[in-house]
């Protein structure tokens, strides 16, 4: 049927006609049970255009691009490609037609080589040898160097993304979808990516660019379509908008601004790490090397860095999930704690919020009250003579709900039933309500909507104001700039010397995140001073 229509149409609207959009969705709808993930979305994408798709988590961005790439079938509505109605049987058909996609983080095979990964994304019509040769040529042409023989698990995040991009480019797509490509890149790596994207645009290709980094969108994109709750809210020219105006459209209201209370006093050191080194616990892990820092009460220390540079390992060493041979490497409230268990560290006044909400921060199928008990049993008076004080656990849930505006259907639902933002508010709230002396929190607002993110950041600031020491690991530099007093960068298991917030420019942090050292300059300064 499809092929038939195609043959009957003597003048398909080509790339250069300019008369009809390259890709068009009309009333595209995707329904999962009662839930409308996409509600009648119209979007036009023209050649030589970088089109941003904006929206909070759960707004329906992923569903829309999956439908365009043929990964899911729309429930209603249609997709037109060069003016012709198409029904994609799957991604391989999308690729054949000239639609390429660069996934955020889920389409590489760790134990296969670069060349094998690329081969899997192609139709397999050319021999492996020819393909490898073309791979090297394409990666050279676009300035995206890759060694085809290396296995993916050995590569950095930036290199992994290069594989995805080169793989998509090797199909010579007319239309390329990029799903949050800069989420895991250093600012410098992102700049290099923008050069590639501008070049692709100049070659006449169209790009659909999913991001929630508004400054980036303003800089790069010609058009922006904003989704909210599965519906299209607006299409605009992002260059004529401001970041706050775009954010308002995404959220559908004002976002509370995070305010750092003035006159915060730093007090005694509450968390000290002395020359902490730790071998990795798993095959592809990172070795921690000589990490030292001192964190005083009333202070927020931010740890920046590209994911996978030892942040998880550092969190495990601080929380007591992994023990250190030398007790003096981790000192909590003046007591050597490197050899102490998680519970013992909690009793010293420390609290921990891991990156992963479901499965690490909470047990997904357990109720919130039970999850409150899991971290509060040692030091929050919820257990008497070995019996659980159910009333006390419920009270914790109620207090967290009230204080941090956790929205949920029941008083005490299962953790997995909450949305990401609300669950994160609950987890952070649960720990803060214990009045910790030290709070170690990893990616506090990862994948959380803007409203909840503001609540969480404010809570961290308030906790520091109340005298606690707060350690925040985040990949979001804007977040760290907003709340941290000092920022250090992790790279290959090493931690840089912390920079004061006023000195921590994006450029400096970016250099550190890429493994460059600021030391020569700093040393010169020191001598000069």
């Amino acid at each position, binding site marked *: 049927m499809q092929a038939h229509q195609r043959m009957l149409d003597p003048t398909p609207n080509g790339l250069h006609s300019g008369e009809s959009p390259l890709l068009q969705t009309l009333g595209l709808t995707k329904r999962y049970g009662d839930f409308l993930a996409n509600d009648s979305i119209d979007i036009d994408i023209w050649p030589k255009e970088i089109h941003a798709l904006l929206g909070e988590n759960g707004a329906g961005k992923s569903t829309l691009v999956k439908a365009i790439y043929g990964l899911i079938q729309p429930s209603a509505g249609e997709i037109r490609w060069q003016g012709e109605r198409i029904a994609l049987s799957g991604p*391989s058909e999308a690729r054949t037609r000239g639609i390429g996609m660069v996934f955020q983080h*889920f*389409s590489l*095979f*760790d*134990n*296969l080589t670069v060349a094998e990964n690329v081969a*899997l994304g192609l139709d397999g019509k050319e021999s492996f040898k020819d393909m490898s040769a073309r791979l090297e040529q394409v990666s050279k042409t676009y300035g995206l160097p890759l060694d085809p023989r290396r296995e993916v698990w050995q590569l950095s995040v930036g290199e992994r993304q290069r594989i995805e991009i080169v793989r998509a480019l090797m199909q010579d797509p007319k239309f390329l979808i990029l799903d949050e490509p800069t989420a895991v890149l250093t600012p410098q790596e992102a700049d290099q990516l923008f050069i590639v994207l501008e070049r692709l645009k100049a070659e006449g290709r169209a790009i659909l660019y999913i991001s929630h980094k508004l400054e980036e969108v303003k800089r790069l994109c010609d058009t922006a379509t904003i989704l909210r709750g599965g519906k299209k809210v607006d299409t605009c020219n992002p260059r004529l908008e401001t970041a706050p105006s775009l954010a308002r459209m995404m959220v559908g209201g004002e976002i509370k601004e995070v305010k750092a209370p003035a006159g915060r006093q730093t007090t005694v050191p509450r968390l000290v790490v002395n020359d902490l080194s730790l071998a990795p616990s798993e095959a592809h892990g990172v070795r921690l090397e000589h990490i030292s820092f001192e964190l005083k009460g009333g202070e927020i220390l931010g740890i920046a860095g590209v994911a996978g540079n030892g942040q998880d390992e550092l969190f495990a060493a601080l929380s007591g999930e992994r023990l250190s041979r030398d007790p003096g490497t981790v000192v909590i409230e003046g007591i050597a704690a490197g050899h102490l268990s998680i519970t013992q560290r909690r009793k010293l006044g420390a609290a921990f919020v891991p990156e992963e909400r479901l499965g690490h921060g909470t047990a997904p199928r357990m109720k919130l009250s039970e999850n409150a008990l899991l971290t509060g049993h040692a030091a929050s008076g919820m257990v008497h003579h070995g019996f659980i004080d159910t009333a006390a656990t419920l009270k914790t849930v109620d207090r967290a709900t009230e204080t941090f505006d956790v929205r949920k259907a029941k008083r005490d639902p299962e953790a997995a039933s909450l949305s990401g933002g609300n669950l994160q508010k609950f987890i952070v709230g649960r720990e803060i309500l214990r009045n910790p002396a030290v709070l170690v929190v990893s990616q506090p607002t990862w994948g959380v909507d803007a409203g909840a993110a503001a609540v969480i950041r404010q809570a961290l600031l308030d906790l520091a104001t109340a005298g606690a020491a707060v350690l925040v690991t985040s990949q979001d530099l804007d977040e760290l700039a907003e709340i941290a007093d000092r920022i250090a960068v992790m790279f290959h298991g090493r931690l840089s010397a912390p920079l004061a917030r006023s000195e921590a420019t994006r450029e400096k942090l970016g250099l550190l995140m890429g493994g460059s050292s600021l030391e020569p300059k700093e040393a010169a300064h020191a001598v000069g001073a």
Partner: protein
Amino acid sequence: MELIEAIILAVLAASTPLLIAATGELVTERSGVLNLGVEGMMIVGAACGFAGAWLTGSIFIGALFGIVAGMLMSLVFALMALGLAVNQVATGLALTILGIGLSGLIGAGFVGERITPAAHLYVPGLTDIPLIGRVLFGEDGFVYFSVALIVGVWWFLYRTRAGLILRACGDNHVSAHALGYPVLRIRTFAVMFGGACAGLAGAYLPLAYTPFFIPGMTAGRGWIALALVVFASWRPGRLVVGAYLFGAVTILQLHAQGWGVGIPSQFMSALPYLATVIVLVLLSRARTGGSTAPAALGTVFVPDR
């Protein structure tokens, strides 16, 4: 001289069913599916293989019966573990229990019957060479086939695009799906291949190893095959080493017991397991890096549509 030749022949005969069954399971596991029902598929293959050969008088048709029986068993597994996304460990264990019962039922009428076992190759001149003649040119068809099978599987996995796609499914089914590969269909084929191999390995026992059928005659060989796949870190080359080593130590310890070596027989019987574990652990210690198990092994995959 004659004794050495006899020992080598016995080693090959003891190793062949392990090699065939383990090769099938290796392909299944490389696609990301853990089928613990090898023992069950083997024993049904043994019963059906013997029935086929006894009824038709042809070893070849008997072997086909075994293959088809193993495949049908594996389809039951595929339906449950892939189609309905049931836990693979539980399904595999249930398949073994089912297989043991089913083989008793099918084979009940054949217990005590005998057939002419599979013919051995005879090439005038070559087969008569002392020591190596019968080893290289005087085996039955199963032995030659098993060697061709493992070489073919190696070539398939590492030299063909289809093999690459199969390995990709085992490494990361979400990615494979996102690239548009039919993960469940590929895995179903892999499971069926594993079933066919297990069925053939089972049929080898009454068709070539001993020319009669007794219930439970696989005697745990399916479990050994499963263990060999893991110890061989999912690599065909190491699988060959493991299978023949296991066979060799099994036969040697029998002879050693016959010679009256003063070691308790229970320890001697345990020796093949011990030797295989030690050698394969040493082999896998020498690996260069990267994880060895297929990353998606045993995990349930439900594509979203």
